[in-house]
């Protein structure tokens, strides 16, 4: 896959009028959104704006009440999450969801289920296909893990995931998502809980992932990260898009400031600027 930044690129991921309510609460409200191939798009917004729900809708964990979600022009609305992953969407979770009692390598190998075909009987009888696939996904897992330098390689491969530090768990989750070889990677607050040095590193890492040809949709609260990585920023509030564009456009948008600080706060902020 190669990234092309022409203006005529077709959207890789597209949401058309997607709506989702929980009871009476409309969490996502007629949201239109698109991500082009090779782009890094950031989603920002105050807590409860519907960012994580958006991710859950895209990955099929929730089914939208209305609207349509398209991947590469094909509808993926209402498909089971594991099938959506096979179509090429991978994600990480805001509050880490690693398989803590499995080893680091197994965590990544487990994500290869959809990319392997050997039946359970082939595995028991050690038939050629099972052995070949096993070798392949082991190599792929190790290759993905070495993306993070020495941190997740060597002796780490056979360590249980719970023995990892917080930052390394985040890295492992990203490695696991990348190993499914997605067309688009959804990162839910990759810098949450990281110290400044690690945050800086994550920013560089996301750039590196993009150079590898991934398209990325990221939720992030750290504005330095958002500024550092985004081609485009989308601001959500109460499930609706309130601003879209470059980081500077969105960051200075009156509505965004208002959503974060309230009307009074926005006025005060404006007064301070003058």
């Amino acid at each position: 896959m190669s990234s092309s930044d022409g203006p005529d690129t077709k959207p890789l991921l597209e949401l058309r009028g997607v709506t989702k309510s929980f009871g009476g609460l409309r969490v996502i409200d007629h949201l239109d959104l698109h991500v082009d191939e090779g782009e890094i798009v950031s989603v920002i917004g105050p807590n409860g704006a519907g960012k994580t729900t958006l991710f859950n809708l895209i990955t099929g964990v929730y089914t939208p009440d209305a609207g349509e979600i398209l991947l590469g022009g094909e509808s993926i609305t209402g498909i089971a999450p594991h099938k959506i992953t096979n179509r090429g969407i991978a994600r990480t979770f805001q509050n880490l969801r690693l398989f803590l009692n499995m080893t680091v390598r197994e965590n990544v190998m487990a994500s290869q289920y959809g990319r392997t075909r050997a039946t359970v009987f082939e595995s028991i009888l050690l038939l050629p296909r099972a052995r070949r696939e096993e070798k392949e996904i082991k190599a792929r897992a190790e290759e993905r893990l070495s993306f993070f330098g020495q941190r997740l390689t060597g002796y780490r491969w056979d360590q249980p995931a719970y023995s990892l530090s917080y930052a390394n768990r985040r890295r492992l989750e990203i490695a696991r998502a990348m190993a499914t070889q997605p067309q688009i990677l959804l990162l839910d607050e990759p810098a949450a809980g990281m110290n400044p040095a690690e945050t800086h590193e994550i920013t560089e890492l996301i750039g590196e992932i993009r150079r590898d040809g991934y398209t990325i949709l990221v939720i992030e609260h750290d504005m330095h990260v958002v500024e550092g990585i985004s081609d485009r920023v989308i601001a959500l509030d109460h499930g609706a898009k309130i601003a879209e564009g470059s980081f500077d456009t969105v960051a200075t948008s009156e509505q965004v400031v208002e959503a974060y600080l309230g009307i009074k706060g926005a006025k005060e902020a404006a007064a301070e600027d003058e």
Partner: protein
Amino acid sequence: MSSSSQPPYEDPRDESAPPDEPRVGVDSWVATHEGRREQAAGISGRIRDWWRRTPPAGRLLVFLIPAIIFPLVSNSGNIYRYGILTLIYALLAYGLTIVVGFAGLLDLGYIAFFGFGAYAYGYLASQHTGHHWHAEIALPVVVVASAVLGIILGSPSLRLLGDYLAIVTLFFGQAFVIFVNNANRIDFPFFGQVDLTGGAQGLEGVDPLNFFGYKVSTNKGYFYVAVIMLVVIVTMLHLVNHSRTGRAWRALREDPLAAEVLSIPVNRLKILAFAFGAAVAGLIGCLYSSIQTLDAPGDYSVGLLITIYAIVILGGAGSLSGVIIAALIVNGVPELLRNPSNGRYVFYVGLILVLWYFLKTWQRLLIVLGGTLVFGWVLYGISSLVWDRGTSGRPVVDPETGSNWLSTAISHWMLTPTDRTQIANWAFFGLVILIMIATLVRGWWQVVVLIPTVWIAAFAWENLLFTPDQINGPTRLLLLGTVLVVLMNARPQGLFGTRQVEIV
């Protein structure tokens, strides 16, 4: 952002000089922390370490060699009581390991699949129905049928999680027992009344396993059949566990949502786990039914389910080698205790082990044991001077085994009143109080309190629990329960289990 500021920790990406010995506090040192701690844990740590380095085939041999020798040096009754029953428990626990240990589904209807296998074999090969299928055909048919039943039960259970799944499957297990109890008078259209299961009397006259005309007829033969099944199933489980399917099972046990989002079809794999567990249970059902030559409804009750769960949990959920050890303990300990003089050894050895675990140092253990001995002698001496009846009752000696060194020693140490039952009941009450006090006080006070506690425990044992009417009933179960509690306290993750981390 202040990216120029120096991070306050070692940068693990510093690739210039990877040290041979991980420095204290550095990444890789922290990572191997658990391993070092396990290693430091004395003899048991060394055994575990050695066990971990042994390849899987070698581990299997460690069990296989004694298993092959055992029937050659044992009599038929012991082969059945210690060998075959342990193997059947272990085999059932392996089937449950798939469902509970790997996939993490709380299936309380598991024994029904075992019963289904037994009755299905009984239906295909017994005098009851008049069919006499060979085992090489009957076994695969029953296994497939059990797997299909597993799928049928698994499908509606898909949306149920945790407790709800447990309730539905428990209902299925109970329904099965009621069904076989009553399925001797079902009215079918066109066929009339059919006797499927023999009802409460059970299905009688089940054929022995007949492989290509060779009939397995002795306990020794069945023992080897069970060993072969065990080897096949353990190998199979080991291979599955390290395949994509096994990894997917464990992944969905850890976090079903993450598994689903990582391309694992969670629902299909749950059903697969159900079907696999059911197939194994069905196979063991065939074996069991042919050994018993009878399918009795009472054999497939909740009691057996609890035993099998105890084995899986004691062995360490998901651990393959733990299951065999746990099955040996759960089946072996009560069988050993059937002989009263064994019971006495088990009690005193267990008592010393508990004390050692509780006190942690050899010095204190010796002080407590020595103190208890002196305390006993002093009491015995005083009693023989002022209260004759306190020493006139003899300790219970089994007429078959007679007296041995231990019973002789005890009869010169322990008070054994003639009218012992009432005194012993009060002693039991005092024991509970003393144990409570012993857990509350600390330091040397604890040692002081423990001396009468141990003595009164021995008193209650000799005068109440170790009496002929108790030893084969409650005492056996009480001791088994104590053994289990101690083992589970010592290793909460199971004997061979790895510590399951939920949230860190």
